[in-house]
């Protein structure tokens, strides 16, 4: 009975209900985009760190877990390797560079990451191979760099770096392409550590000793991460350590950015609940005499309330469906440079929470419908 009434009303008032479905569709679009943006920007910031094959990141003492502020020299690598439970250590050096592209294409700013071949921090290549040696004039570019520059394995990539007051150009051979490994909201180019030291931007002449930013430490047993995070600063002078998750959450701006986007998402959902709730409540107020009549002729309370619940749920589902389709359609046509990423997990959470806004907003009108007295049909009663 409830199904019959709600479907009839939906169908005969389809224009009106479609309108509210469209509002829900737009809210869905907004929420999914914010979720996609959170995912995209987040991953643009920390993708490399979150995928790295290591358990602990070691920083310079008092660097407050800031990669940019941390400096570590090679002497620490031996100390770290000797610690019980450490399987391998890999120094990481970060800076930025610009890829110069032919034919008047706009140069592309990238994160230039120096890693030691065969050590933690080196990225797995999907196409081609990794570096030959620490000095090789070779580069592994990530998928984003490849997409935006059309560089292929075997091509030469020209990096521009300002050294002293000179613009220097370094041609490197692309030997491999990895999956997405963005860092600091830029696509990444990986080079062997000694090559990195040579081609990176710097203010003075090349020094004798290479200085890294941090060290990636892979443990024998990842379950001992917590223990080692504490043991490392006690056994190695002037360093501090953090597990991987703490490390990428400490990436400048990451937590703040995610919190901002999360707030936006929650507010959009709250607005959704209020809009849907308002619509159905106004509709309910208009239907008071009609519902009074239905109850007077003997309709059960659960029939009336069931019809409202079903209606709200269907309208929401249709809206979320349209919104999701719209989002996917739009997202498919975005250029790669737009940092929107839809991952099954976060998208599913967003869709489920969107599906809840209808029934949640409709609760007030369901409650109201239960309280309408059949006496209303006779123009009596409160």
């Amino acid at each position, binding site marked *: *009975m409830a199904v*019959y*009434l709600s479907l*009839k*009303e939906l*169908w*005969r*008032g389809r224009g009106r209900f479609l309108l509210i479905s469209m509002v829900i569709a737009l809210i869905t679009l907004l929420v999914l985009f914010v979720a996609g943006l959170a995912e995209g920007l987040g991953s643009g910031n920390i993708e490399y760190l979150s995928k790295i094959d290591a358990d602990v990141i070691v920083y310079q003492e008092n660097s407050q877990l800031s990669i940019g502020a941390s400096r570590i020299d090679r002497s620490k690598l031996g100390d770290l390797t000797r610690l019980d439970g450490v399987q391998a250590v890999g120094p990481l050096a970060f800076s930025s560079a610009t890829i110069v592209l032919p034919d008047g294409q706009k140069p592309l700013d990238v994160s230039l990451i120096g890693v030691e071949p065969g050590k933690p921090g080196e990225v797995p290549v999907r196409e081609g191979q990794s570096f030959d040696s620490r000095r090789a004039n070779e580069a592994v570019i990530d998928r984003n760099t490849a997409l935006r520059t059309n560089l292929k394995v075997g091509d030469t990539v020209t990096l521009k770096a300002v050294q002293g007051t000179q613009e220097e150009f370094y041609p490197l051979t692309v030997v491999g392409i990895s999956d997405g490994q963005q860092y600091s909201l830029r696509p990444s180019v990986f080079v062997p550590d000694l090559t990195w030291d040579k081609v990176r931007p710097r203010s003075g002449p090349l020094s004798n000793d290479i200085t890294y930013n941090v060290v990636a430490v892979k443990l024998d047993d990842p379950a001992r991460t917590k223990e080692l995070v504490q043991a490392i600063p006690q056994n190695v002078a002037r360093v501090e350590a953090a597990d991987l998750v703490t490390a990428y959450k400490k990436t400048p701006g990451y937590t703040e950015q995610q919190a901002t986007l999360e707030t936006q998402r929650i507010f959009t959902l709250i607005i959704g609940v209020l809009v849907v709730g308002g619509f159905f409540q106004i509709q309910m107020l208009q239907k008071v*005499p*009609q519902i*009074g*009549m*239905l*109850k*007077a*002729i*003997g*309709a*059960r*309370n659960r*029939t009336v309330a069931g019809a409202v619940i079903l209606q709200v749920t269907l309208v929401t589902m249709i809206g979320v469906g349209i919104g999701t389709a719209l989002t996917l359609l739009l997202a498919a046509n975005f250029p790669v440079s737009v940092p929107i990423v839809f991952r099954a997990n976060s998208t599913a959470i967003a869709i489920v929470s969107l599906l809840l806004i209808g029934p949640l907003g409709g609760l007030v009108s369901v409650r109201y419908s239960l309280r309408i007295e*059949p*006496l209303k*049909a*006779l*123009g*009596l*009663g*409160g």
Partner: protein
Amino acid sequence: MTNALETKDVTKTYKIDNGVIHAVDGVSLGVKAGEFVALVGPSGSGKTTMLAMLAALLRPTSGGIFIDGHDLTTMDEGARAKFRREKIGFTFQANNLVPYLTAQENVELMLRLNDKLDRKGKDRAKELLDRLGLGERLKNLPSQLSGGQQQRVAIARALIHNPSLVLADEPTASLDTERAFQVVETFANLIHEQNRAGIMVTHDLRLTQYVDRVIQMRDGQVDSIVDNHAEIEERVVKHADDHHLEGLKVLPMIKPQPVMG
């Protein structure tokens, strides 16, 4: 013949700040199957409150109401709703029909509520609407029907499920005179034909020409009963227009309606 409807000393009182209002005060009456009764009286005389209690929508403060021998006053809310959809047919002043259902669907709704809608029921709904001159309007929504047509759909709905008691609250309030007469005449004919007990609350005394008995209420009590056609014609209908109804003591009077709740 036993009464389809019987009330025994029904009273409804409302507490107000400084005392008690007797909206209905000790009313006992009986209506047989096949009998159409008009409940008349000035505003505040208690006729609508009486109707609400007969309809199992309002509980009396004291007294008993029996429909087909079932005492309404002892039923809980669920049982009363069930009783309404099975045993009672309704037409109201306004908002009679579900706006998103067609004429036929509105009539069938009563059978649907009782889980008794089958092919036969659908045919009966069509026949009844046809009988009421709405054969061409089966698929129309209420918004596409005139006030009189809507009222006739409501009459069909009130009768489709073979109720014991049919109640009509000011069924002609929104109609012009000619249509009002037509509607009530058809209603009366169907009630007689189908052998239902019918009660109509109205303030339009001219409509009483179609009923078998007129019960006049005043100050919550039965003031007088006129129960033969000649007398109704002579004492009620004739004087309806000039409000000069000495015999029935129907005086236009203004009295505040008690606050319900």
